[in-house]
């Protein structure tokens, strides 16, 4: 299940509803990415995620399909915000359910690496030093490369 959200969501509600829809699973791994108030030594007052309707959905669907093909999952979910966000707000919620924990952990890890480098979003941080566009960190590209 994939959702693009303009408004803040509650990661706890997402996890509860995902768990309720994952009967038979023995393991649910999840991840929440949140807006930080600091980035690379700069204060951050807000984060803007630009998306490109039509393409963004396709890139998220491709990431979910890749994870389903690569890991033995019973279900997965990606919830991704776009638009303007404040520090502390969730940007993304990813969860994977499986019989055993290794597949669930790996799938969430994998989906996050792909989201950081292959999901059609563009980020602009706002703060006292003015706005700046930010791209994937070198660590994100290295993480992505682990999966081949």
């Amino acid at each position, binding site marked *: 299940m994939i959702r693009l959200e303009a408004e803040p969501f509650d990661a706890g509600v997402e996890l509860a509803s995902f768990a309720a829809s994952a009967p038979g699973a023995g393991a649910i791994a999840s991840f929440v990415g949140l807006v930080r108030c600091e980035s690379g030594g700069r204060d951050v007052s807000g984060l803007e995620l630009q998306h490109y*309707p*039509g*393409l963004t959905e396709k890139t998220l669907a491709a990431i979910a399909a890749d994870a389903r093909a690569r890991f033995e999952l019973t279900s997965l979910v990606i919830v*991704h915000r776009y638009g303007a966000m404040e520090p502390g707000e969730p940007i993304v919620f990813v969860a994977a359910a499986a019989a055993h924990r290794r597949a669930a952990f790996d799938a969430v890890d994998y989906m*996050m690496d792909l989201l950081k480098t292959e*999901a*059609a*979003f563009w980020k602009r941080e706002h703060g006292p030093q003015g706005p700046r*566009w930010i791209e994937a960190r070198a660590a994100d590209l290295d993480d992505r490369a682990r999966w081949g």
Partner: protein
Amino acid sequence: MATIHFLGRLQDAVGTSALTVALPGGVRDAESLRAWLGRDHPALREPSVRIAVNSSLHPGNAPLAEGDEIAFLPPMSGG
């Protein structure tokens, strides 16, 4: 006519987030569009900038047709 979107930092580089333009006769594919717009906006020529046509990313050089929606995309970063 074609609509051309500029995402992320490219909208700063080009000065607008979208243009509607008549494509010159010689611009019949994504890479020739890049070369044409890239004369005024060198950021579009960066190898990391990809071109989507009608909300799809094609491997290689995509042909362009009247009415297409084109987008120049700097490296993506979600999550």
